[in-house]
């Protein structure tokens, strides 16, 4: 079973700074890392390969430095990595990105066959979660988002069963293969990579494709030109106002709290009680 994993190199948003004038991310302020959700996707692919054979192929779009993110995937256990990198891809929104990745997947599909596509739930720099489903739509395969467990893979029967996280629980879904899964962090723990993987990754050079290496590309659908998204305005979320501290003896505190509760019933009377 050949599994393709789409991954992205992102700035580490735990430490990134926001430019106070433009409200845009100052990407130079944070180191570039492999999108954490994607690491879980690669790990899942590696685990599935251990059971079902085949190989794990990683694909990314980005600047040449994104090769480091692909090397990280090789550390986790990916077999091959491809990077599509070209100025003509630059400035892409999720529509143009999913188109570009789709064109690369088409080529890989043609060359080696793809049985399953995995993506992280979303990238931590944009949080849209649109690229995965966008690729599935273009490939005309079912997208299964927010997957927390792969229950069963039936290669001969051409189907798999997964557990999806939904609002108030989970659901079990069966799909035909090939399909596309986007995964949550709960799906697995990324294992501490064995040393041979580290050595292989340090030496690994991903295959880099430009637009010209892909077939039948509609240039108009790439990069900034192919991106209808317009960012109207950006602002930091409003900081919530400070909490009110209730002080005094225990008895006083309880009384004050009760008074507030009775006064602002709407805050508490959600279920079961009168509104």
């Amino acid at each position: 079973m050949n599994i393709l994993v789409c991954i992205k190199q992102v700035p580490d948003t735990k430490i990134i700074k926001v430019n106070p004038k433009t409200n845009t991310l100052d990407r130079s302020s944070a180191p570039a890392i492999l999108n954490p959700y994607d690491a879980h996707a690669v790990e899942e692919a590696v685990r599935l390969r251990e059971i079902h054979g085949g190989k794990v192929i990683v694909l990314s779009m980005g600047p040449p430095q994104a090769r480091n993110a692909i090397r990280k995937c090789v550390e986790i256990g990916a077999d091959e990595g491809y990077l599509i990198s070209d100025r003509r891809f630059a400035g892409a929104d999720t529509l143009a990105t999913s188109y570009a990745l789709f064109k690369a997947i088409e080529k890989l599909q043609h060359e080696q066959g793809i049985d399953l596509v995995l993506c992280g739930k979303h990238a931590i720099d944009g949080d849209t979660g649109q690229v995965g489903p966008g690729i599935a739509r273009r490939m005309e395969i079912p997208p299964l988002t927010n997957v927390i467990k792969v229950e069963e893979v039936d290669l001969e029967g051409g189907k798999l069963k997964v557990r999806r996280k939904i609002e108030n629980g989970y659901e079990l879904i069966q799909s035909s293969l090939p399909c596309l899964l986007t995964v949550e962090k709960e799906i697995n723990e990324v294992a501490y990579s064995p040393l041979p993987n580290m050595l292989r990754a340090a030496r690994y050079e991903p295959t880099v494709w430009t637009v010209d290496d892909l077939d039948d590309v509609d240039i108009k659908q790439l990069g900034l030109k192919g991106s209808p998204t317009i960012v109207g305005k950006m602002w930091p979320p409003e900081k919530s106002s400070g909490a009110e501290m209730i002080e005094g003896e225990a008895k006083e505190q309880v009384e004050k709290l009760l008074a507030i509760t009775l006064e602002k019933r709407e805050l508490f009377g959600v279920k079961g009680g009168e509104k």
Partner: protein
Amino acid sequence: MSEKFDVIVVGAGPAGTSCAYTAAKNGLKVLLIERGEYPGAKNVMGGILYRKQLEEIIPEFWKEAPIERPVVEQRFWFLDKESMITTSYKGLEWAKEPYNNFTVLRAKFDKWFANKAVEQGALLINETVATECIVEDGKVVGVRTDRPDGEVYADVVVLADGVNSLLAKQLGFHKEWKPNEVALTVMEVLKLPSKTINERFNVKDGQGVSVEIFGDATHGILGTGFLYTNKDSVNIGVGTTLSGMMKKKLKPYELLEHVKQHPMIQPYIEGSETQEYLAHLIPEGGFNSVPKLVGNGVIVTGDAAQFVNAIHREGSNMAMSSGKIAAETIVKAKETGDFSERTLDSYRTEIYDSFIGKDLKKYKDAAHTFEENPQYFQEYVPLMNQAMNTFFTVDGTPKWEKQKKIIAKMTAGRGKIGLAKDMYKAWKAVK
């Protein structure tokens, strides 16, 4: 089957990277193992990079290395509570090639340097801890790491794993360092606009200042403070022996806070924003603490070998030179295929013939003398300040009377003979 390299270098700091660079450049198959997320992520020093030793490895490195500012002025401050005596040398010839030394931020510099070793063909792996040397028939033949299937082999293992060097300790090359053999340095990187730095330190862009601070900075414990200018930040820190800190029951951050609040220092850093807080042990045992340096298939370099000149605050340069000498030793050994202790021992003799051995020997008693005689920092620095105050305060007292007063004060504590003895002792320690 585990892989075999010509050399495994443990630790991608100045020593390890120099070794990896030199060995790879000479065609050896090199593996460089770093425990941090990237080289430099865990490395700390005050921030002065000396030119000479790196230049011997990478000529004209300053054209591409991420340096902050070339240092054009070295200042020395002798602090009392509300006063200081300063002395300095400023030379604009240090602002031009070939420069004297530079300020650097280690997180950036080490990453760049390790990348140069990779360009030469060394294989670098991060986030991997070498947990022990693999010893077979009394020979070190590789290292075991904390990763699954984590064994890897080599003709020679170079230990550049820093001050604590667990690997050298496991091999029995040294015992746990005593509290007076290591200093603790705590420092902060404080963000300041470059324009503010230029104004406060009286320099232009591309010019930096290093300030070494004695006396009240360390509450009289043996040690010094420092203040170095980067492009748009300053490094401020203080280093003292662990034993001194234990004796005075001081906490490291309290000491640093004391330095930052000192009325002579505070105006330089006013309005700055703390960007990083760093703390690290510095091996300052000197000549007498140097461990066994060579074994069958193994060489110890850099901080792991206690190659630090505490008096002149040199360490990274010694680390680089020792790494280079280690690599050259291995290249030579490779020709005969003999990696025994006897062959590799030329590393030890070369180290002792180089400035590393000579400088360590010159100052072998210095730190101990100053530690056992706290009066140098506790008494003489304040006395010197008081003398200056007496001499320069215009109050109608005739100057010769002032001189008499000063001499009386200077000798009050320890007497004329005591003073003379102290001066002789200090001179002997650094002569």
